[in-house]
Each structure stands twice: as C-alpha cells, then as structure tokens.
C-alpha cells in the first residue's frame, strides 16, 4: 500500500517577530527538516522530496544541496496566497508518495521575518518608497502587483484591513459581535497556556483584555489578529508500508483538497466581485464538501480541529463552511464554548494556533493535528481519531483530514 502517512513532525524554537537574528531563515528550515526526520526515525539520506507553499524564500533546490540530499526526485510549491497552501503542500507530498514519484517528502516552512520585512504591515505588497516627485501610474512588475493596483491606492495593504471586510459584512448580515470574535482568541490563548512552545504561553487573556485591546482595522482589535513569529516547522510524509516500522505512530492522510471559488485570486485584496452569497464566508464550503466526500466522513466525525486563524472572524466563517454550525450561526457556536479543550464539542487549535502559539503560516497546525492523533498534544483530546486541518479562509485554500485508524 502506498497510502500516504505522516510519520514525523517537529519545529525549531518559536519566537516573536524579529527575535531570531542569529541564524538565517534557510538554516532554520534545515533545522526543522532534520528535527522532523529524526522524529520519524528516518535518516536524511532517505529524503527524496521537498514541498512548500506560496511566497517561500527558501527554495527546495538550495535546501536539498545544503542538506546533502542524495537525490531530489520531487520539489514542489503550491500557488495559494500566504498560508492558504499549507495543507495543499502536504497534499502534494501525499500525491508524490502515492504515485511513486518519491518515497519520503518533507513539507517545511521557515520564517525569520525580521530579516526581511513586516508581513502584517503589508511589507510583501507595498511599493518601493515613493520618490520625491508627484505620484503617477507606475508599471507593475508582476500580475500580483497589477491586481493590487486596485487595492494599494486606497491604502489596502495590511491583511488585518483586508480580512476585516468580509468579517464586517458577516456581522452586518448575521449580528455577529466583537465579543464572539473575542471568545475565539481567549479560547486559543487558554490552550497555549499548556504548550511550552507557544510564544504567548505565559500571557493569559480575558475577554475584557480583548475588548480593551487597540482597534487595528475595525472590527479587528489587536487580539483578533494572529501573531507574527520567527521559527520553522516540518512534516514528513511517506508510504503506509514505510510508515509501519518507524519511530512514531503513523497518522494517515485520509483526504486532502485545495480550491478557489471563482474570482478568489488574492482574497479580500482582490475579490470584491465574488458571488454575493460567498463574500461573507470563508470560501471553503465547496472544498469542505469535496474533502468530506473523499474521506467518506462528515463534520460529526471530526474529533479535533486545527483551523487556520489569521483572524478570528476567518475562524468563525470556516466553522460554518466546514459544517460545524449553520451559515450565520458561527457567533453563537463559538460563544457556547464549542472550541474549548475542556467541555467543547469541537476542541480547536489545541496548540494555541496562529493567534497564540506561533504564526508559521499554518504548517504548525498540521504539526499539531498529527500530535493530537498521536496523543502528544499538550491539550490532548481523549480518543481522538479524526482531525481536520485547514489552511486559510477568504483566499484560495486547502485542507486535510487526518486519521488514526
């Protein structure tokens, strides 16, 4: 059987944005890859594939050379914005393994953003500093920048502002409140309190703290926005046959899907004209149906979830997309305590998520998904057999169903 399994997961230290300055981002990627391969009980000489996702500065060809891989048979990067491709990168690794393209593929993400720019401030998108001359139309050097020509002149460069747009409309349509969004942040922070890797582990958060935090881009307060972090993590994928005699209990990739509804492109920066019925959603409902269909499972079968949490409102909209509650009922659903490790019907982001563990573009959610099925999570869910992992909302995205069978 070549059914793909995840056999190793690991990370480096996680730190606040800009706090890892003594090692380069690609060296940190090497550390995470080596740690994950060691976790699997494999040798670096076994690795013949590397996979990553959008905007990765650390090209697989260089990492393969730096790591001394004997033969790189599969090198792959997903075209999905930001974290949208995290699960898809694992899915591509799984396809490579399932089809015999490679035997052992490592998916990786490394971020030392302080050595480059401030992602959350729009650093990826902002034009070079304006020269001291009257502004005029300039030539776009890429399709991304040409598309952003219809966002940047209005000051839309910051993700916190872009994702506020669908969330604000969700609040308008369904009466979703800032307090309900705050419950998501408070719950994930509580989960982080048991996780020694979590950047915000030692910093309790109350709903009052959330409500008192500065407004960044209404309705996003500071604590509605994910962290920006330095760190790296990696996930090792191989065949069921190979997985059988390795160090850790293998986790099966039950299904992986990626997808973008019509017009989604770069998410709320560019998708003002998507269908009205999709605008105030995560845009992942159709993807969710395909994912569940492929695995022969439904939302009721999910024991624990790791939901991409760039912003609290995006978590809420994904919960609706993936069928855990009806459209528009995400607010009351999270308010009921559903996402809590203790007593929740759907323990979610048991590591603390991007809001409180670290922002590694969501690959750390895959790492936690594996740990939650191995019984290694610091917020363990007793008897968990199926874990949903998602990679973003309001953008082209992807998701995984992982299983312990």
């Amino acid at each position, binding site marked *: 059987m070549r059914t793909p399994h995840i056999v190793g997961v690991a990370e480096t230290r996680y730190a606040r944005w800009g706090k890892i300055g003594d090692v380069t981002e690609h060296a940190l990627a090497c550390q995470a890859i080596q740690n994950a391969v060691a976790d699997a009980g494999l040798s670096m000489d076994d690795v013949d594939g590397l996979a990553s996702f959008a905007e990765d500065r650390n090209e697989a060809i260089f990492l393969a050379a730096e790591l001394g891989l004997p033969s790189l048979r599969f090198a792959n990067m997903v075209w999905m914005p930001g974290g949208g491709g995290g699960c898809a990168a694992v899915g591509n690794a799984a396809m490579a393994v399932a089809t015999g393209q490679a035997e052992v593929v490592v998916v990786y993400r490394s971020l030392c953003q302080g050595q480059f720019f401030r992602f959350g*401030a*729009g650093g990826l998108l*902002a*034009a070079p500093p*304006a020269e001291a001359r*009257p*502004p*005029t*139309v*300039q*030539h*776009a*050097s890429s*399709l991304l*920048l*040409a*598309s*952003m*020509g*219809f*966002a*940047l*002149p*209005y*000051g*839309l*460069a*910051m993700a*916190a*502002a872009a994702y*506020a*747009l*669908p969330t*604000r*409309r969700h609040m*308008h349509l369904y009466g979703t409140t800032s307090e309900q969004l705050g419950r998501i942040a408070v719950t994930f922070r509580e989960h982080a309190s048991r996780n020694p890797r979590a950047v915000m582990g030692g910093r309790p958060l109350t709903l009052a703290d959330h409500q008192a935090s*500065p*407004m*960044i*881009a*209404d*309705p*996003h307060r500071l604590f509605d926005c994910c962290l920006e972090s330095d760190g790296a993590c990696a996930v090792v994928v191989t065949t069921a046959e190979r997985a059988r005699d390795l160090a850790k209990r293998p986790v099966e990739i039950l299904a992986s899907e990626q997808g973008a509804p*019509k*017009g989604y492109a770069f998410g709320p920066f*560019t998708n*003002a*004209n998507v269908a009205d019925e999709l*605008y*105030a959603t995560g845009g992942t409902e159709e993807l969710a149906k395909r994912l569940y269909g492929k695995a022969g499972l439904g939302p009721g079968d999910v024991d624990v979830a790791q939901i991409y949490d760039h912003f609290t409102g995006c978590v809420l909209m994904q919960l609706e997309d993936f069928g855990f509650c009806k459209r528009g009922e995400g607010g009351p659903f999270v308010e009921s305590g559903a996402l809590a490790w203790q007593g929740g019907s759907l323990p979610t982001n048991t590591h603390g998520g991007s809001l409180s563990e670290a922002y590694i573009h969501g690959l750390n959610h895959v790492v936690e998904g594996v740990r939650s099925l191995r019984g290694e999570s610091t917020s363990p869910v007793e008897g968990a057999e199926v874990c949903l992992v998602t990679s973003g909302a309001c953008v082209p995205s992807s998701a995984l169903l992982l299983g312990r069978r």
Partner: protein
Amino acid sequence: MSERFFPDSMPAPLADHVTLPFWQAAAEHRLVVQRCTACGRTRLPPAPVCTDCRSAEADWKEVPGRGEVYTYTVVHRPIAAGQELPFVIAVIALEESGGLRMISNVVDAKPEEVAIGAPVELVWEDMSAELAIPRFRLVRR
C-alpha cells in the same frame, strides 16, 4: 486640483497593458468598467478576457459613480507617511455597472457615520496632474 484626502506618499497604482486604460480614464475623471462586446458582461479590475464567455473583445463603459457601501473597515494604522487616521476602506457596489463592486475609500466622513448600505457618490482626488484616484463620500440627505 481637487480637494485632497490622502498624502502624496500613498502607494500609486501599478498598471500593466490590461489595466492602464482604467487609470488613463481616471486621469480625465471618468470612472470606467470593462465591458465584453460579445456578451455584455462587465468586469473590474480589468482582465484579458471575459470571465463569463472568455471573449477577448471588450470596450470601456463609463459609470455614473453612484453606489452604496457593501462592506467597510475603519483602519487605525497608516500605510503612508503623513496620513490622517483613522481612514475608511470600503467595498462599493456601483450602480449602472452591471452589478460590479470596487474597493475604494469613504472620505470626508466620521467613521461612525459609515454603514453597510449607505449611499455614496464618487469624488475624484487628484494626486498629481497625471494621477486621479476615485474615492467616495456619503450622500447626505
């Protein structure tokens, strides 16, 4: 020159051959959308082919610049030096555009006055002799 709402240091539009006519019309204070001459479907931002029938034949239709706020955010962090805070980014549903929306700003309003569904009208901001940006203000009743 028009009234000013944002500083010169705001990011200028980056254009390619497909999108440049939009900005050339804007410089003449004409708000245009692209229209497929095969099926009549409009589109914005401009794109090489019709997103419905995939014809590459298109012309430009001027729209009157009336609409309503589809969604918005009040932003408290600057994108450019010297910017007044907070400022409002909005998605505007444009009348007589074939159902299109565009990202823009609501200017000249207190943030608490901005609401989804509020009627707005076009206001041009001349950033320079060559660059005008379409923004919107609330229609006061």
